[in-house]
Every structure is written in C-alpha cells, then in structure tokens.
C-alpha cells in the first residue's frame, strides 16, 4: 500500500504551490487506471469530469476563493446520484441508468471543491457483506487478493485503502461502511440517522440507510462530515440538530471519559487475535485516563434477526419501483405488461436481492405482518433502550467492528445466513439510531487489518471522532 497521501499533507503541498489540482487529479486517474485492474474497486472512472473540475478549482485557487475541500480526491459509492453519470447500484437493472440530478452530498462536496474521481463498486443495492454481490465483478482486498474487502461499500473502502482516493462516500444500512473499513484498514464513520441528507441516495431500507465516510485519517473524515452534515429540505428525515465544529474534538484527550465494553461483543465467535488487540486498546484508553468498564447490551444477540426482518421488508417495498417502465433495464420484445414486469425483474436482479425481496414480501404479507415485521420493530425498541440505558452512565461504547478479519472470496457466498452473521457487531447501532466509527488498530498474524468500533449517543459524532483520533495518534502501527 505505497503512495498513499492524506488530505492534510496534500493541502500543504497545494498551499505551497508545489502541486496544482490538475496534476494531482491526473496522478489519481493514472493510479486508478493502472491499479484498479487488480481490485475492481471502480465501476466508473470519471476522468474527463474530474479533469474539468480540477481546471475550475485551480482557477478558483488562483483567485483566492477555493473551498475548504480543495485538493480532496473523493470516490463515491455507485448508489449515490451524480448528475450526468451512471449510477448502477451494482445492479444489472440499473446498468445504463444516468442520474438526472445531484444528491445533496454531491452538491455540497462540489461546492467546497472536492474532486470527484469515480463511482465505486458494491454489493447490489447495498445488500451484502463482501462485495461479491456486484453484478459486475467482485472487489478484491488490497491486503490479499484472494480475500473479500467487506461490503457493501467494498469499492469505496478499497479505493481509499489502495490509495486510489483520499476519501470516499459509502452507505451504511447495517454496517456497510464500518465493516469494509475494518477489513481494509481504513477509517469508516456511520453518522447518526438524519445527520446527512439522503436526497439522491437510492433507497434500500429507508429507516436504516445512512451515508457514511471512508478515509485514511480521522481528521479527513471530520473534514468531510463538516461539509456534508446538516438539514436538507429535500429529505424530511434529515435533522436540524446543530452541527458542532468537529475538528475541535480532535485535540481533546480521553481523560475522564466513561467507556463501556459490552460483554456481549466478546463472546463466542470473536476471533482470539482480534480480542487481544481490542483489549490492548482498552488498556491504552484506561492508561490515558479514561474509565473503561464492562457493560451489558442484553439484547445484542437479537440484532441480526431484527435487522434482517426490517431491512428486507423495507427493501421489498423500495425495490418495487424497478418494473422496466420508468428507467433501467427492460426485457425486449414483451407484449404483455404483467410478464414484462416479472421477466424484467427476474433477469435484472441478482440472487441476494431476490432473496431479500422474497423474505421482505413474506414478512409483510397477510397473516405474517404482526408475527414478523411488527415483532421486529418492537424488538428494535428494546435494543434502542439497551443503548439508552448504557449511555446514562457511559460516554461511548467500544468493541470490535467485525468478528473475524477478511474472509476468502467464495467462503460465505453460498450460505446467506452465515454471511448475515458477519454483521453481528455493526447492525445494532443503526437499529438504535446511534453513530459509530471503525478505526484501524493493527493486523492479525496473517497481516490482515483489524478494526476497532466506537459508538456514541445520537448526534455524538464528535465523540466518535475524538476517541478514534486519540487512538490513531497513540498506537504504534505495525
């Protein structure tokens, strides 16, 4: 993983006039053209568009009116709409779909002069934990090309991990930013539901979907969050909670911080080496003046079941729109409407998407709604209350991001339930509506990255960033 630069160092080079945005952009385009043959992290490389943008940003710099993200090279998960570019969601059904408008996050990044370099590969519609469910090609982990990079934002994670972008946007419904961040050794933040507008984000599970940030450093993550957070009239679920200056959190230490370690996250199924590394960081925090103690989230074990009932129900409804009428793929030469819908959908969607639509349709169907869907929403309340109880006495909750490091390609792709269980530590934050970050803390004996997860109260992104940054500064990376 050589030749990685973070935004802060590039910013200094730009300010000193040692480089301009056009050269920088060109370097990254070349890096992607060359490097991505191995990884399949990108679905579209936006070379022309990025070069034009760089020319405009250089002009603005010369006039002294460039934005705060000048020089930030950003990759965007291919589920976020960007005007005039293909947005495939990793699906055959949207293979040729061109977004007619910009998502709010894209507008905001452009307004601050970030360079948008390409659209990244992913599990189809965000459904998966390995990026093998892409209709195009599976994404490979830069630390071992035989292994998965995690998912569903696997392309975004690899773009950052392999130095093909400084940061990337992903989306996190049940862990799709944090899990691939952990498995590829980068920072991944899932903000509070409502912190970032979802306008222009193509929906998978609307009560859980949230745009997140993958980056090489915590500082860069904070920079992007500052720009894209905030209320948007076009998303009525976006929050008008005040936005703090996130970088003010980065200079704070951890003295006096009350930290909870849920015993449920350290039981059977957690890899021994990961446990060891997490314990080391807990000691580091304790020695840094924090008060680390064991807490309980007694219903954590019900997270996966609750999550998969709610997300599949919402997905079956959201994905009803792909009918071959308004946009996307339509099977040719069909003369009858009903079979046009059915054949278009059956040929356009991949297996995991079909499986989730089927499960969601089942749990919403007459006679099962109360027993499954309503039941899951009630358990969601109980899980949320567990978090509320712990946060009465704790500032943050820590633990592993994933139960294992990156697994092999094909290892779980034929066993959906086993694949679902790889989200065991990430699904409860979205259910409870709290923000959570994964920060790299080292590697296992196979040389594969390990992620450390920090979860805070609703709208406590500042605390996540503060502790993640403190850890980043205070550990010695191998």
């Amino acid at each position, binding site marked *: 993983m050589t030749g990685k630069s973070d935004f802060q160092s590039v910013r200094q080079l730009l300010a000193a006039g040692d480089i301009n945005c056009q050269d920088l952009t060109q370097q990254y385009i070349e890096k992607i053209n060359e490097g991505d043959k191995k990884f399949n992290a990108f679905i579209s490389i936006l070379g022309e568009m990025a070069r034009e943008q760089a020319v405009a940003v250089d002009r603005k710099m010369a006039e002294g009116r460039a934005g705060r993200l000048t020089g930030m090279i950003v990759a965007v998960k291919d589920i976020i709409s960007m005007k005039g570019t293909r947005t495939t969601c990793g699906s055959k059904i949207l293979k040729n779909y061109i977004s007619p408008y910009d998502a709010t996050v894209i507008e905001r990044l452009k307004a601050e002069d970030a360079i948008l370099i390409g659209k990244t590969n992913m599990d189809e519609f965000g459904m998966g934990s390995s990026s093998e469910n892409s209709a195009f090609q599976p994404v490979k982990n830069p630390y071992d090309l035989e292994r998965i990079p995690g998912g569903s934002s696997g392309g975004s994670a690899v773009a950052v991990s392999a130095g093909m972008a400084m940061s990337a946007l992903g989306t996190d419904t049940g862990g799709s930013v944090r899990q691939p961040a952990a498995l590829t050794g980068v920072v991944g933040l899932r903000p509070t539901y409502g912190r970032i507008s979802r306008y222009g984000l193509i929906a998978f599970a609307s009560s859980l979907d949230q745009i997140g940030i993958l980056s090489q450093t915590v500082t860069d993550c904070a920079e992007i969050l500052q720009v894209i957070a905030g209320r948007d009239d076009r998303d009525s679920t976006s929050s008008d909670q005040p936005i703090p200056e996130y970088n003010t959190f980065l200079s704070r230490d951890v003295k006096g911080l009350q930290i909870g370690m849920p015993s449920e996250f350290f039981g059977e199924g957690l890899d021994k080496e990961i446990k060891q590394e997490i314990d080391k960081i807990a000691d580091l925090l304790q020695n840094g003046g924090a008060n680390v103690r064991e807490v309980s989230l007694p219903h954590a074990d019900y997270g996966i079941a609750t999550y998969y009932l709610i997300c599949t129900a919402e997905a079956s409804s959201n994905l*009803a729109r792909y009918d071959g009428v308004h946009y996307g793929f339509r099977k040719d030469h069909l003369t009858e409407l009903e079979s046009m819908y059915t054949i278009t*959908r059956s040929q356009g969607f991949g297996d995991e998407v079909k499986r989730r639509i*089927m*499960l969601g349709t089942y749990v919403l169907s007459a006679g099962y709604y109360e027993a499954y869907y309503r039941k899951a929403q009630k358990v969601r309340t109980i899980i949320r209350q567990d978090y509320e109880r712990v946060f009465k006495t704790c500032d943050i909750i820590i633990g592993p991001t994933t139960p294992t490091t990156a697994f092999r390609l094909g290892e779980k792709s034929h066993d959906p339930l086993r694949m679902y269980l790889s989200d065991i530590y990430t699904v409860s934050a979205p259910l409870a509506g709290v923000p959570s970050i994964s920060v790299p803390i080292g590697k296992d004996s196979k040389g594969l990255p390990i992620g450390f997860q920090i979860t805070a109260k*609703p709208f406590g992104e500042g605390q996540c960033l503060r502790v993640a940054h403190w850890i980043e500064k205070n550990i010695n990376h191998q």
Partner: protein
Amino acid sequence: MRIQKEDVEKIAKLAKLQFSEDEIEKFRGHLEEILTYVNKLNELNTDGVEPTYYVQHAGDVMREDRVKPSLPREEALKNAPAQDKGFFRVPKVIDQT
C-alpha cells in the same frame, strides 16, 4: 419453520419474480433457514412495547405548499426504456382478457 414450494410460488407472484424449479427449491431452503433463525425473536416478550418505525422521529415535518422548479419532462423521460409523445410507453394493457 416449514416453507413449502407453494409458499415460495405465492410470494414470487406477489413480488413479481419468477423462478425455475431448481431456484424454487434453493430459495425455499434459504427462506426456511432464515425464518427459522429469526424466530428467535419469539423468545422475547414484547407485550406493551411500542414499535420503532423511525429512530429520530420528530413528528410530522411540514413545509409550505409552494411550487418549486422540478426536472423538465425530457430529463425525466431520458432513462425510460420506451417513450412516446412525452409519455412512458408500456405494452398494451386494454382489450385483453
């Protein structure tokens, strides 16, 4: 939790999907396994618990009812697989029995 072939066919029809015989058996097995797993929620007593629909629910969000610019028709139709005189075109749906 038993799922029958007929259940899969019924759900497929509702979801507007179709499967080969082999696929039906595969999906039947997966659905059965996943539904058996999620049945663990029945271990919990949820009597009197309010369901959570949205985590940050602040009540209804109102806005002024004002006309604002929206996508021009040509733009909105650009991605349509078939269009005709400013409309989406679909196979004929009337005069069929």
